[in-house]
Every structure is written in structure tokens, then in C-alpha cells.
């Protein structure tokens, strides 16, 4: 349990420091695998339900989603670097700071119990790293990766708190997360087609300061009159 928590924290730190997108995806895939085997080692025994959950988790988080993200990366002709707003060195330093913050929060929260759970710290740390990645990286693909890390963090924290719900709810949560990132993956393809890039810092069409140029929309906005004509014709 402790060693897995350490590995999880290390993968996140590695993620903050890696400059190549393909490497970052592999790291998240490895993290997904670690998360998948976590329920097996957390002392719930090897019931059928635990096994199914672990298998679903591993298939979704370490095989299916990384595969899809890799495909999205291959299709996009853009540079395969992470392109952060904050340099990698500073990111790793912030990561270490976040790790301390996570440790402090957990020690405050569990002061009554008198035990500090390493996997809870890892959970918080993953949550913070995920948020940090979403905020400080330019590419939409990195944001999807950040969201995956964040979800892994929430999952780890939930598991280490021992607050597991019934099997159906756990499965539902996994499924929701999977569909969410799957949708993000589909949209990555579309972003690549529409914008010729997957940078979110060039998402600036919608804001209150400058109004979008709606002439562009003309082709897409419905043409009601036409349909009404047809309906009248049918009558």
C-alpha cells in the first residue's frame, strides 16, 4: 500500500517534469495501472466484485484511454511537446511544495485518529497535481491528462478513507469518468481539425470583452424558413 502510494506520487512528479507528450501519456497509463491494483492490496480480500472493479479500472485507465489519447496525439500534426506556461523546473518545485501541502492537510484532518495514511496523502497530491496540470499547460490534450490524474487522486483518496460504496455505485463512478475522458478524446480530434492546433490559450473567441464575429456562424445557424416551407408544401 505504502509503496504504491510512493510510486503514485513519483509518477505525478515525473509528469510535472516531462516535456514530451507521449512520455506523459505513458506515465498516466502506468498510474492508471497502479490505481487499478490498489483495491487488491488495500486489504479487502479477493472477492469477485473487487476483482471486477480492479480489472475494469486497469482496462479503462491504463489501456483504453491512454490508447485513445495516443491516437489523438498521432493525428495532430502539432509539436509533441507539453508547452507549459511555467517552466518544468518550477513545475517540479511546485509539485514538491504541493506534496508538503498534501501532507499537512492530511495530518490536520486525521489528527484525531493519530494515523497518517500515506495513500491519502498520495490522493491529495494527485488531486493537486491534476489541477496544477490543467491550469498551467497550454494543450487541450494535457488538460485531459490532468483531469485523469485528478480523478485518480479522488479515487485513491476515497479508497484510502475506506469509504467504499456498493459495487454498482463504484462501477457507475468508473463508467462516468471513462465516458468523460472518452468525450474529451473525441473533442481533441475535432479541436485539431477546427483550429489546426490543440492549444487552449488560443481559445479566445468567447469572451465578454470582445464579441464573437457571428457572421461566421451564418452557415451553421438554422434556417427556419426553409423548413417551414417544406412543411407547408407537405400539407
Amino acid at each position, binding site marked *: 500500500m505504502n509503496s504504491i502510494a510512493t510510486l503514485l506520487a513519483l509518477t505525478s512528479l515525473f509528469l510535472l517534469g516531462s516535456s514530451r507528450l507521449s512520455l506523459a501519456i505513458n506515465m498516466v497509463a502506468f498510474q492508471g495501472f497502479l490505481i487499478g491494483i490498489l483495491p487488491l492490496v488495500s486489504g479487502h480480500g479477493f472477492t469477485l466484485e473487487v476483482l471486477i472493479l480492479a480489472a475494469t479500472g486497469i482496462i479503462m485507465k491504463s489501456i483504453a484511454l491512454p490508447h485513445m489519447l495516443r491516437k489523438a496525439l498521432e493525428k495532430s500534426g502539432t509539436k509533441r511537446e507539453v508547452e507549459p506556461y511555467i517552466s518544468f523546473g518550477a513545475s517540479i518545485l511546485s509539485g514538491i511544495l504541493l506534496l508538503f501541502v498534501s501532507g499537512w492537510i492530511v495530518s490536520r484532518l486525521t489528527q484525531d485518529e493519530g494515523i497518517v495514511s500515506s495513500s491519502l496523502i498520495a490522493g491529495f497530491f494527485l488531486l493537486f497535481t491534476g489541477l496544477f496540470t490543467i491550469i498551467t499547460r497550454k494543450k487541450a490534450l494535457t488538460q485531459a491528462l490532468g483531469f485523469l490524474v485528478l480523478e485518480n487522486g*479522488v479515487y485513491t483518496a*476515497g479508497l484510502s*478513507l475506506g469509504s467504499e460504496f456498493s459495487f454498482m455505485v463504484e462501477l457507475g*463512478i468508473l463508467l462516468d469518468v471513462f465516458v468523460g475522458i472518452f468525450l474529451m478524446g473525441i473533442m481533441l480530434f475535432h479541436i485539431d481539425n477546427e483550429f489546426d492546433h490543440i492549444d487552449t490559450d488560443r481559445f479566445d473567441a*468567447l469572451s465578454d470583452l470582445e464579441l464573437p464575429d457571428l457572421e461566421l*456562424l451564418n452557415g451553421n445557424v438554422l434556417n*427556419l424558413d*426553409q423548413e417551414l416551407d417544406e412543411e407547408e408544401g407537405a400539407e
Partner: protein
Amino acid sequence: MSTLWLIILFPILTGIVTLFTDSHKIRKILLIVCSVLHMVFTAFICLGSITPSTESWFCTDALSKIFLSLTSLLYFGASLYALTYLKPDEEGEHVSDFHDLSFLRNKNAVFMGCMQFFLSAMTLSVLSAHFGLQWIGVEATTLASTPLIYHHRNKKSLEAAWKYLIICSVGIALALMGVFFLAMAVPTQVEFFTPRGLSKFAGYLRTDWLQVAFIFILVGYGTKAGFAPMHTWLPDAHSEAPSPASALLSGALLNCALLAILRVYQVCAEVPAVQALALQLFILFGLVSMAISGIFIMHQADYKRMLAYSSVEHMGIMIFAFGLGKAATAAALFHAICHSLVKSSLFMLAGNILSAYQTKKVEKIHGLLRTMPFTSVLWLAGFLAITGTPPFGTFMSEFSILKVAVESRNYLFGALYLLFLVLVFVGMLTIFSTMALGKKMPMNSEGQPIGYKDPELRKDGTVYEHPLQYITPIVFLAAALFLGCYIPEPVLQIINEASAILGGKAL
């Protein structure tokens, strides 16, 4: 298996059939059949004929009943409106090839299918009592509505949909963390992880964990409910989505997220220390949301964005009222009903204007009263309703909230609340009057109105308006007007019952 699963599962079934259907006509029929069936189920639930068999998953108390009937009613209105709003399939969009998922390329099939998935997800989130199940429902609403926002398949809708998906998913992930903490607040294994199940252990709940859980859940679901400063996805999503979807997002979806927060508050209300914190946070988020929306509505150049900010304002009013407690709780629930009716009609009317003028810019539209008689009169009535002018239900609720603020000697909060209401009123007045009054249409040098792709003017210079385009707004606005004059006994009773669940007083 409870019969309640049926109301959640059948929209998924009709939705899947819709996705794979070639004919636009059959899809329209399915859309209507689905919403009518949903209304029938909802009626049975409200009359108490369908109740959950065990306490562990669902509950059909007064709170659920109010929000479920709102969702069902609004969905029916929106699907009626969608019938005229969606144009028939374009060439080459027909579904036939299954092996490369080409059915996903048909915009209409995806839109109508996802509408039904969306309905199912909202129903799940409203009916569920188990906190984990409710989380699944709220997250599912995000997933089902993202394709709705991306309907136009252009850069702007893509940007809006991406922001929506990322921001809401992160918010809801934080809420899941909160749900885990909530489980930690209970010292022993509880039988039912539901508001009522936890309330039984009120004396044994651990205050610190409950506080942390509440903050995580308020911020998490609050992102989805559109509280400032987590509202940033909302104006983009609501203005880029096609109008039937905007009406649903604004009228029904925000309420679902609000209900999720109220369910947790139901537990917090049992522990005085946590309740005090919760009420303070409610008031804070409420006033900040009202202030920010007031500022952005002033001089807003895009009328759909203005409506979106108005939703932020009204969610702010509601959560502010919940923060005041007492009779304001009942007023907030009443406000939720009126706001949903009025805001969804306004979004539909905005859709009518958009389809005639092909622009969302306020400055390019004037003389609506002369060109679109039905739409413009309703548009002005909607303005009066949304700003809380006397005969409408919104006035009743906003006034009751102010009354509670003054009675409980929260003069500062009351004054700020009133100030922001006035700010929004002035901002909206300029926008609505610019659009409705003035000369007919901007004309070009050849005497053709600018903006029409295919001018379909009648001899008297008005635009043809299909009855389905204005029938729903007429009914909804009339209902809001009626509720302002007289609240029928059953409605009042259910509002008071729901208010009692949340520890508030009767209206």
C-alpha cells in the same frame, strides 16, 4: 428492482433508438413520445402512486417532486420547441453505416438522442437519495449535454463545449471528494448513505469532516449550479448551445445541481456548528453571484449571454435565500419554479430572434415589435417577469426574500440584495428596449433587410412565426403570471413541505 428505474431507463432506450434512426420524422415522434411518457411517470410519482421500495437508492419527497416536475415540464416544452428549431437532415447526413460510427456524424440524431440521455441523467440526479448515485447522475448530465452544446459543429461551440466539459468535470470531481469525506463524517457504517439515513446519526456526526465535506461539495456542485466565481463556463455554454438546449441547461440543469447541494445541506442542518458555516457560505456565494452577473449584464453586447448571466443572478438569489433560512427557504423554492418557467421561455424567444436576424448582437436588432409581433410581446413580458415586476411570481418570491432579510435584521445583506436587483433591472431594461423598440430592420441600399438569409417577410413587413415557436413561452409565462396572483393549494403545500425538510418555515 424498483419501478423508479423505469423512468430513468426508458429515455435511454428511446435515445439509443433515436441515434440509429434515419428518418427525421420518426426521431421527432420519439422525442415527443419520450417526453409525454416522462410526464405521465412524473404525475404518478407526484401523486404518490410510485414510491421507492427501499430507502437506500431513491427518495420521492417534496423536494424531489418539485424538481422532477419542473424538469419534466421544461423538457416537454423544449422538445416541442425543438420540433421547429431543428432543420431536416442535410444531404449526406443519413445514417446507414454502423461500422465506422458514421451515425455520430448526423447532427440531428445526436442532438435528439442526447436530449433524451440528458433527461434520463437529470431524472437520476433529482430522484436519487444515495449520495454516490446522485454524483453519478450529476456527472452524467454533464456528459449527456456536452454534445448538445457542440451541435453547431463550429469553432465557437467547440470552445464552449470543451470549457464546459473540463470545468464542470473538475468541479464534480471535487464534489466526489466531498462525498467521500461525508462518508468519513459518520463514525459507524450507516445502513443508508442518504440524507435521511445520515440525519439519524445527527448526534454522532464528526463536525470537522462534515465541514470539509460540505465545502468540497458546495464548491464542486456549485460549479455546475453556476455560482460566481465558478460560473465561467456558463455564459459560453448557454449562448453557444442551440436554444432548446439552452432552455434546458438554464431552467432544469442548474436546479439539479442546486438540489444536490441542498441534499448535503439537509444533513448539515442537523449539526448547528456546520449549519452556521453553511448558511454564511450560502449568503456569500449568493451575493457574489448577484454582483458579478449585475456587472456583466450592464452593457452586455450579446443577448443570449445576457440571459446566461441572468441565470447566474437567479441562482445567486436562490442560494442567498437559502442562506437566510426561515420563510426565505420556501420563497427560494418558489423562485426556482418561476425562474425555470420564465428563463426557458426567454431562451426559446431568443432562439426565434436569432433564427430571424441571424445575429446575437444587441446593437444589430431593433424594431422587434414591428417585425415579430408574437415573439416581441412575449419577449417584453419575459423581461418584466425575469426582473421581478409585480404581477409575476418572481416578484412574490423576491419580495418575500427581502422581507425575511429585513425581519431578521440583516439590513446590510438586504440592501446589497436590493442594489444588485436594481443593477440587473437597469442593465436588462436598456437591452430589451433597444431590441424591441425603434425602426423595423436595418436595411441595405437595395431596401432589403440585413440579416435575413432568405427574407420571408409578409406584405406588412412581419416575419412568419410558427405557432410551435411561441406556444410554449405563452404557456410558461402565463403560468408564472398566474403563480404571482394566486398559488394553488397543492403547490403551496408541497413548497411548504419541502421547506420544512430543509429546516425552513412556510411561505
